[in-house]
């Protein structure tokens, strides 16, 4: 479903991604790991359509469409979802109204009628259980005053409501205690099926005990320098990133 070829990206004068290649097929879980500053979050943001980045070269195809040509809302309509590393607080926009707008915008994009209030609430109630999110959080302003864990759960709750084909989880595990991590992982695993795919961007192997990846990629200095299966993650956990850095010391 997703095909990234030779993607090169810069912020201002600084080149962050130096030619990324990645193929993601339906039913797969990919983990992208790497030390801080390796370009993990940049990759996630560029895929979601953040405008601070300049694409210097390469291409990204999503179900045969040129993803980089699409506006962020069109990417969401096509089935892409980014769980933010730092979900922004939006005072004055209620969580529920926001979700309703999001669900119906995506339905509209796909040529479906909007959900009426009854069906929307029904669906919401159902998905709330999945991530053990409380009703009171949903009537509040979007992420405003939420704890770190509540924000991350809210991201997965949105994912559950929007049912994306490709979900990119940008360090969703960072800063989560073990209970919250279990809840979040349970949500992701339940939503996982043969028709969708997940990209886990993470710094820690711990998450991969709960969401088991089919492939693990190591990102370093803007390139995928190593790919493997879940065993690679365990090796990284054990040995740290230094040996990766050494192996690739020739990279600029």
């Amino acid at each position, binding site marked *: 479903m997703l095909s990234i070829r030779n993607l090169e990206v810069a912020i201002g004068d600084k080149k962050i991604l130096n030619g990324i290649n990645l193929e993601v097929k339906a039913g797969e879980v990919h983990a992208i790991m790497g030390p801080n500053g390796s370009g993990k979050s940049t990759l996630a943001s560029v895929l979601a359509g953040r405008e601070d980045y300049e694409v210097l070269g390469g291409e990204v195809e999503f179900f045969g469409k040129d993803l980089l040509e699409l506006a*962020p*809302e069109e990417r*969401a309509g096509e089935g892409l979802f980014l769980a933010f590393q730092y979900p922004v607080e939006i005072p004055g926009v209620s969580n529920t109204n*926001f979700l309703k*707008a999001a669900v119906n*915008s995506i339905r509209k994009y796909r040529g479906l009628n909007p959900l009426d209030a009854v069906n929307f609430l029904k669906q919401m109630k159902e998905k709330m259980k999945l991530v053990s999110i409380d009703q009171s959080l949903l009537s509040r302003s979007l992420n405003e005053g939420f704890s770190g864990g509540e924000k991350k759960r809210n991201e997965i709750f*949105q994912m559950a409501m929007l049912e994306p084909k490709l979900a990119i989880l940008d360090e969703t595990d960072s800063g989560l205690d073990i209970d919250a991590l279990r809840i979040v992982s349970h949500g992701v695993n339940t939503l996982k099926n043969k028709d969708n795919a997940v990209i886990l961007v993470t710094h820690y192997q711990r998450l991969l005990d709960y969401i088991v990846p089919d492939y693990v990629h190591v990102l370093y200095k803007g390139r995928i320098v190593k790919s493997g299966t879940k065993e690679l993650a365990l090796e990284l956990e054990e040995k740290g990133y230094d040996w990766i850095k050494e192996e690739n010391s020739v990279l600029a």
Partner: protein
Amino acid sequence: MDFKENIITHFETFKKEVNSPAHIDEIRESALNKFSKLDVPTPKHEEWKYTNLKNLVNKTYQLGNKNIATSSYTHKYTQFINQYDEKDVNILVFVNGEYISALSHIVSPSNELIISNLSQAYREHSELIEQHFSKYATYEKEAFVALNTAFAQEGVFIHVPNKTEVKLPVILHFIADASATDVICHPRNLIIVGKNSSLTVIEHFNSTNTPFSTLTNTVTEVYVAENAYCEHYKIQTEESNASQISTIQAVVQRDGRFNNTTVSLSGKLIRNNLNIKLNGENCDVYMNGLCAITGSTHVDNHTAVDHAMPNSQSNELYKSLLDEKSSGIFNGKIFVRQDAQKTNAYQSNRNILLSPTAKANTKPQLEIWADDVKCSHGCTIGALDEEPLFYLRSRGISEGEARAMLVFAFADDILERIKYEPVRLYAEKIIAQRLGMEE
């Protein structure tokens, strides 16, 4: 004709026609005398730096309360009066400053709410008038307060007796209607809330859209007695031919509470002066403002809160959404006098420019003479934040809808402080419609 000459001509005729008690006449003469000596403000005056009145004072006005055809009242003004779908409310209507009893109705019982046209109160409540009228809004230095005081005749007089909760709010509709000439009017209100009492008052300003200009120069004095509570709203939804210079002068006594929310949504030029004196201990004051304007509307909010006694607090939040060629000014003063220890005073002003041609100016001024106080102020001017916009768009919401949601949320932060729901809904509806939002 020169503005001052124009006014003095009005006064000569006005004086002969009104039949006020002697002490009111004295005040009038003194105020007019002061007006004739004061300069009409120009941008050279520090307090008028960003608001130029030259296109208002170059006109020859007719004094408002003259040319209303009685028969046309009902139809013409119903649209304004029925803006609140609410039967349980006291409504007083003033057209070009003149009280229109045929369009007004008072439902609160007279033991709860003593309310009348000001000119009537001059005679019927002379004691309270002598005690309060023109005692708070001083005209020595303010040309437009002096001008209003000289012509103070019509407007609302409200007295809430001690220990009385006025259950139904009072809506004052001021309609400016310049049908044949440029019109000036000077509505004058006096609101006295007795000890341990409470009252909600809404001043709503409308106008008819005609080729002629209107200038509404209004003054409201509010006296909040010990442990009393006054909730006060000012809603400005005038047409692009209507300008307004509007002063609220409130005095709050010990344990009293005064909340003002000023919502300016349209008009030509609006200058709001909100001055509050906290005259006792443990007073609590909120000043909320929303200025959401477009076109070439100009809104200048000047607020001043004077902490004269200890242990009181004031909270101020003013927000502006400025689109097209509109301009928004905020000037907020906080005085904390030497006696006012343990004062808490907070002020914040946030401006969002929605177009490159909109303008915002903001100036906080703190003058603190006590040493044991908590005061803070802050102001921002900028465009809509990109991060929330991206977040909403990444969830499938179109850029236009995402912008509308964020702009509405910014405005609603103020509107949701309006406790009287019909007023809040009314203002929310205008903003939502402007943003093209559904529902």
